């Protein structure tokens, strides 16, 4: 390598903070203002490293007895003195230093100045937002209205829906602020449209599951399916918001959404599980009712209905005998009594 050389200062995430073109060696790097290159990092010593050029044109880095030392990366090894290769990184404190020559290959990057996609335009459209929110509000109100089995008071219906809607608005604001801080774009319309669409979709899916359980009267079918849709919707929700609010690439966004989803859904279902009564004293079965036209399964006769109900009684007997096996004393007590009673 020949002077001039470029010394790059990188933060610990690998992002370049500073570049210095140097011709004069030796040079010193440290936190002190006397250095040739001054580094703003508390973990770098006032005089940390000295770079020298040897006769063969190699750069020699010498640790100036710093507290935290000088390291090569991958593997992380401490060195007192080290010959640097082109493009090699050394770590001092929380800062990396990299040396490159003027000839370092930099390629052209083509930037597409074409129009953003239609979908992107729609999703960030300020006109589309009120439309979607009106749809969401309509779905929430309808959902509430059809759940009322007494006289309908519209203010009660509205009162039941309002908290959800306030949450939607607050949620949109939070994500807009997050994206403003991280990407410097407010994206209020995008976040609002996204959460509105997703919530509307969620209610539709939930309704679809109810009808599915009505058609196939399997106890807890809708509840079971809703667990899956809970997971899917939380994941999509987080992914969509994160994608617009951060610089994460797709893989990183997917990973963080998946982790956050499993945490949120996990904790939510843990709370549900903990609060579940240990002993269910009332009968539980599929009780969803819809108008007669939705009965699609062929009804059975009374005799057919009761033909295999013995299953309901059998497993209980097995449970009982399993208990008896655990408690041999009780079983022994029962046996002679039976003999006496049935001579």
């Amino acid at each position, binding site marked *: 390598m020949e002077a001039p050389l470029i010394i790059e200062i990188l933060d610990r995430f690998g992002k370049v903070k500073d570049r210095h073109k140097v011709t004069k060696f030796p040079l010193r790097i440290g936190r002190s203002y006397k250095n040739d290159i001054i580094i703003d990092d508390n973990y770098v010593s006032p005089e940390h490293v000295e770079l020298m050029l040897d006769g063969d044109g190699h750069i020699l880095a010498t640790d100036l007895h710093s507290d935290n030392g000088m390291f090569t990366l991958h593997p992380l090894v401490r060195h007192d003195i080290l010959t640097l290769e082109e493009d090699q990184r050394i770590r001092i404190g929380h800062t990396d230093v990299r040396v490159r020559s003027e000839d370092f290959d930099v390629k052209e990057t083509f930037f597409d100045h074409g129009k953003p996609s239609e979908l992107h335009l729609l999703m960030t459209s300020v006109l589309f937002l009120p439309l979607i929110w009106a749809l969401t509000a309509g779905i929430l109100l309808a959902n509430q209205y059809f759940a009322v089995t007494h006289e309908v008071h519209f203010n009660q219906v509205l009162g039941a829906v309002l908290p959800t809607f306030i949450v939607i608005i607050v949620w949109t604001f939070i994500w807009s602020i997050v994206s403003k801080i991280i990407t410097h774009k407010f994206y209020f319309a995008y976040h609002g449209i996204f959460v509105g669409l997703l919530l509307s979709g969620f209610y539709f899916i939930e309704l679809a599951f109810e009808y599915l359980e009505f058609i196939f009267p399997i106890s807890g079918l809708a509840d079971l399916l809703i667990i899956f849709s809970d997971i899917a919707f939380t994941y999509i929700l987080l992914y969509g918001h994160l994608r617009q609010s951060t610089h994460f690439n797709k893989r990183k966004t997917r990973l963080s959404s998946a982790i956050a989803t499993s945490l949120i859904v996990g904790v939510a279902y843990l709370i549900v599980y903990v609060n579940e009564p240990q002993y269910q004293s009332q*009968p539980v079965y599929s009780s969803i009712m819809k108008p007669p036209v939705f009965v699609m399964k062929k009804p059975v006769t009374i005799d057919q209905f009761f033909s295999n109900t013995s299953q309901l009684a059998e497993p209980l007997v097995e449970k009982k005998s399993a208990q008896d096996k655990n408690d041999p004393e009780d079983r022994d007590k029962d046996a002679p009594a039976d003999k006496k009673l049935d001579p």
Partner: protein
Amino acid sequence: MLYSIFNRHQNVIGITSRYIVLLALCLFANSSASLASTEGVFKQYQDRLLQIRIVDKATNSKSTIGSGFFIDNNGTIATNYHVISKHVFEPKQYRIEYVSNDGTVHDAELLHIDVIHDLALLDGDAIDTPFLKISDQSLGKGVRIYTLGNPLDLGMTIVEGTYNGITQDTMHERILLSSALNPGMSGGPSIIEDGSVIGINVATAGNSIGFLVPQKFLSQLALDAKQVKPDNFLNVIRKQLIKNQNKYLTDLASKPFPTKQLGQYTVPAKLADFINCWGDSKDGSAPYRKSNDYCATKNNIYINSYLNTGTIRYNHYHFSDKDMGKFRFYKLIGSYFGAPSTSLPTSKDDFTEYDCKTDYVVHKAIKLKTAFCLRQYKKFEGLFDMVLTAATLNEDDKSLVTTLVLSGVSYENAVKFSKHYLGSFVWKRP
């Protein structure tokens, strides 16, 4: 029921003044009528009377009290099953003792029980005991009856009343008595003038209405006790319950159910004398009309303070829509279909959880969403509680939701009775 009040006051120290007043008034009213004869009866038979106590072994203090009497000279004591039920379920925790007329305390052992008629026989471990003989007379209404017992641990008392025949409307025969029965008198004898027992005090229904177990069941139990000496009483209860439910359910299901009209539907009505029915309808500000028919057995079988069984209960809700629309109307139907009122005991130690089956059933043009649930008695194998609920799906604006609850029945009878019940519904197309 005497035992229900009785159990509330089983820690006898907490006697309320209300009962004392009530008792004093009754004594006064009756004794003024025929003092001499009542006094004579009491004097003559008081040595046959006993107080039965269930004693907690750990603290050695009484936990339940009742009355009893000797029925032979070998020290065999008759009392109510519900007096000694704690000992049956927790023999390690509770023992039985009795206090004779002279105040001496003796241990007693359980000989046999009749859980259906609420009777128990104890072995008092004594000889040459004075006893009351069991009557073999048939009585006419109005015959004077002397009821003996130890109400509220106040000491032996005698109450005079009149015989009012055998009640027709309880599942198991009971003598109706016009006399004041009070907690603690359970298990005591009711005698006629010649000193023979015509019944055992068992329950009260408020002011001067008392119930006695007819003496014939006591004679039968005494006979049974001579033949078998059971030592597993839970098994005895189990067998008696199975036999009993088999009898009354077979009787009921052997003929077509009496029916009545509810809207366009024909539904089971009052099935027997021992079942009570009520009706009610509502047509207020609600956007639907609801009429309700409710039927239940008048009494049930006492097993212990947590557990009653032997009930038949069914109700029909008929709904018609005023201005809800079919979606909301069927949401309403779902809320009734999904939460049947079972009014059954809910203890985890006694029952498994319900296991249910749901399906669509069609019967004579009626389309029903039907749920059939069973739970097993943990202590009595082969006995179940059953809940059958069905909601009709024939019309957009009218629906019938019916629930049948049977407690303490075998699986076979649950199915047989349910089939008979569902089969008795008819829908007339409007």
